[in-house]
């Protein structure tokens, strides 16, 4: 009996890996050849946004923490990489904007970003630590639910104000331009470098996806779901939810940081605008549209919503806000499980009945389809 289940699982795994490899080939090899450079950049940006969506799915879909402040971590990652690019200048010179404000010496916190490896580590670790710290200060006191959401939103606004006001440290409102800088001696805005960035984005997206899968499949993932469903009971069972929540929030922040860095180089600029309130709430709706607690849903949702946004705001800019508002309402009221959830629980079943793939089950489907139950029934009928 166990063999049968194992075989089935193995087959499923092979099919799934095949699909993923196929998708990666389509996205990483075929699309760069087919699409013009401008569209490819757009797609790369959307894919890097879907990395953030994965991080948000981790904390919202699985752990039930609604963060409205993921723009902070996103922008921190972006700033880290942009600072590194800004420092690709002859020794002893300053990035040009400093001279505008009469700054003679490079501020201390810029120095580590001369080195590329440190930058890469920093763009993951700094957002992670900031997220973890904020999470620790909030979760320690058992602040949760709506309170947590509005505190993250306030934190977002605070970071926005801070980055906006510090011309002498980080060029304030104008932000840091990366398109005209060089990376490893090549112009970051050129088509060939952008193509490399795009392929890196695809690879990292797959890597982060599998990382999240691994994270949510084991014991840790079960605990996250338990915290989402009944935190008090988790606490009474002898676990301390605080540590898990801080950890998962930190991981989510780090993922957002990576995404932010990728998004920045493919946009060509980072400004405090990345930390505006609407943008961070938008991130949440991508996950909701795709389906919470389904990692693939986060990616699909981001792709769908961002593509719709691109086409709508190109043709009918006025309609986009109406559409977005309606999207929030519809997803929350009519489609709480998102597209993937709806497909899995409802549409797929219906479709397979119609096509005659599966018998219609009137009782509890989970019980009827359980292989162990089937086995037992067969044994009973044999007797």
């Amino acid at each position, binding site marked *: 009996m166990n063999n049968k289940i194992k075989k089935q699982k193995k087959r499923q795994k092979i099919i799934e890996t095949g699909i993923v490899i196929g998708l990666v080939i389509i996205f990483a090899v075929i699309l760069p050849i087919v699409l013009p450079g401008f569209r490819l950049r757009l797609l790369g940006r959307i894919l890097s946004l879907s990395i953030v969506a994965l991080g948000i799915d981790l904390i*919202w879909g699985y752990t*039930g923490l*609604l963060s*409205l402040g993921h723009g902070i971590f996103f922008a921190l990652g972006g700033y880290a990489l942009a600072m590194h690019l800004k420092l690709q200048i002859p020794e002893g010179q300053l990035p040009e904007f400093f001279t505008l404000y009469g700054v003679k010496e490079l501020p201390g916190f810029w120095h580590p970003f001369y080195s590329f490896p440190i930058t890469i580590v920093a763009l993951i670790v700094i957002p992670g630590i900031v997220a973890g710290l904020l999470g620790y*200060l*909030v979760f*320690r*006191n*058992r*602040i949760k*639910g*709506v*309170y947590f*959401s*509005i*505190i993250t*939103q*306030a*934190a977002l*606004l*605070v970071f926005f*104000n*801070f980055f*906006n*006001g510090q011309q002498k440290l980080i060029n304030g409102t104008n932000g840091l331009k990366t398109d005209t800088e060089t990376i490893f001696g090549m112009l970051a805005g050129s088509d060939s470098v952008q193509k490399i960035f795009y392929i890196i984005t695809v690879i990292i997206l797959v890597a982060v996806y599998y990382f999240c899968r691994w994270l949510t499949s084991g014991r840790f993932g079960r605990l996250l779901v338990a915290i989402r469903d009944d935190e*008090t009971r988790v*606490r009474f069972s002898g676990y301390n939810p605080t540590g898990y929540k801080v950890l998962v929030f930190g991981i989510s922040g780090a993922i957002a940081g990576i995404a932010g860095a990728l998004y920045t180089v493919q946009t060509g600029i980072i400004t405090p605008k990345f930390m505006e*309130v*609407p943008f961070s*709430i938008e991130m*949440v*709706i991508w996950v*909701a549209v795709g389906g919470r607690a389904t990692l693939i849903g986060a990616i699909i949702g981001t792709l769908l919503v961002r593509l719709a946004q691109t086409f709508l705001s190109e043709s009918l800019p*006025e309609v986009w*806000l*109406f559409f*977005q*508002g*309606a*999207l*929030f*309402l519809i*997803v*929350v*009221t009519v489609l*709480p499980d998102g597209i993937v959830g709806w497909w899995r629980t409802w549409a797929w079943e219906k479709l397979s009945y119609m096509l005659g793939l599966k018998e219609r089950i009137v009782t509890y489907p989970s019980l009827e389809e359980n292989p162990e139950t089937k086995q037992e029934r067969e044994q009973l009928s044999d007797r």
Partner: protein
Amino acid sequence: MSALIEGLFNGISIGSVLLIAALGLAIVFGLMGVINLAHGELMMLGGYTTYVVQNVFKPWGEPWFSCYILVSIPIAFIVAAIAGIILERGVIRFLYGRPLETLLATWGVSLILRQLVRSVNWLLVICIGVFCLLFFGGMRLLSRRPDWERIRNLVIAILLPMSTAIAVVTGFLLSQIPALTKAWFSARNVDVTAPSWLRGGVKVLSFQMPYARLFIIALTIICLIAVYWFLNRSTWGLRIRAVTQNRAMSSCLGIPTAKVDALTFAIGSGLAGVAGCAVSLLGSVGPNTGQNYIVDTFMVVVVGGVGNLFGTILAALGIGIINYLIGSGTLALMASSVESLKPLVDVLLFFATSSMAKVMVFALIISFLQVKPAGLFPQKGRTAEL
């Protein structure tokens, strides 16, 4: 000394704006556990209502024009309250018990409202009217049929696209008439001119107290007294308090909780409308007016705690005063007179702009929450969350 008094006055005046905006939010949050992200947009509606009322009064000449603001307050209250009722009946009541989803839904509403004031014109109003008439009228008519439960989904599936199509076609046909397609407000900000008796100010010691600010403080106090009276002296206030304390028990005792929810939401939204009216005196009103206040208002609710007006008052005034004292550099100025506080002065000077003051205030709020996680006056008893 006079600097301190000036700082206190300005702080209180900022705090009173926060308070009047947070009052409605706090009541609704206490009762339903719902944070209304569209609260700022309800304020904006109040501001636009004031603008409309002002334009109506303008041709009537002087003695009437002076008192338009007094008329616009109740009208703003009613307009925002109606919007609130529509919001509650149309969206929020379906999401009861799912506060995070409610948060997102109200954000969707706020986006729609923001775009609505930008592009509202007669055409849009007619289209929406036609749609509502066909859809809800049809639903109402058909719901009298005995087999309503069975055909409900079918009816929605047919009525929704049909009435949408008819509304869109009407829109296209009427779009030829230019008078209908002219936007009412457009995306630009509109200005509300304060009546003459609110211009200028009274001189105290060495600084001016603008009448407009004093008016807002007075308005806030009146609203506070009215809300206090309503919650503590009226039958419906008693019911609201009962539901706030224990929803299940109140429902068992025959309190119509759905009605209480709608009423509370209407009052909360109405207060937002009044706040919008007050805010319109301080600057121009635009589609994004609400966004400037919304996060600060949330912080007031977080610090103030749930279900206690006094906590909200204290939190609003505290945040307002601290915000102003740090942001204007008054605190740095005072500390600079003492030699030993030199490092503190440097830190305070770093934060002495209005946007950096928010950074400092947020840090203070987070450290405050380390001591009192549930706000100034937390709910007590067995129903309180662990």
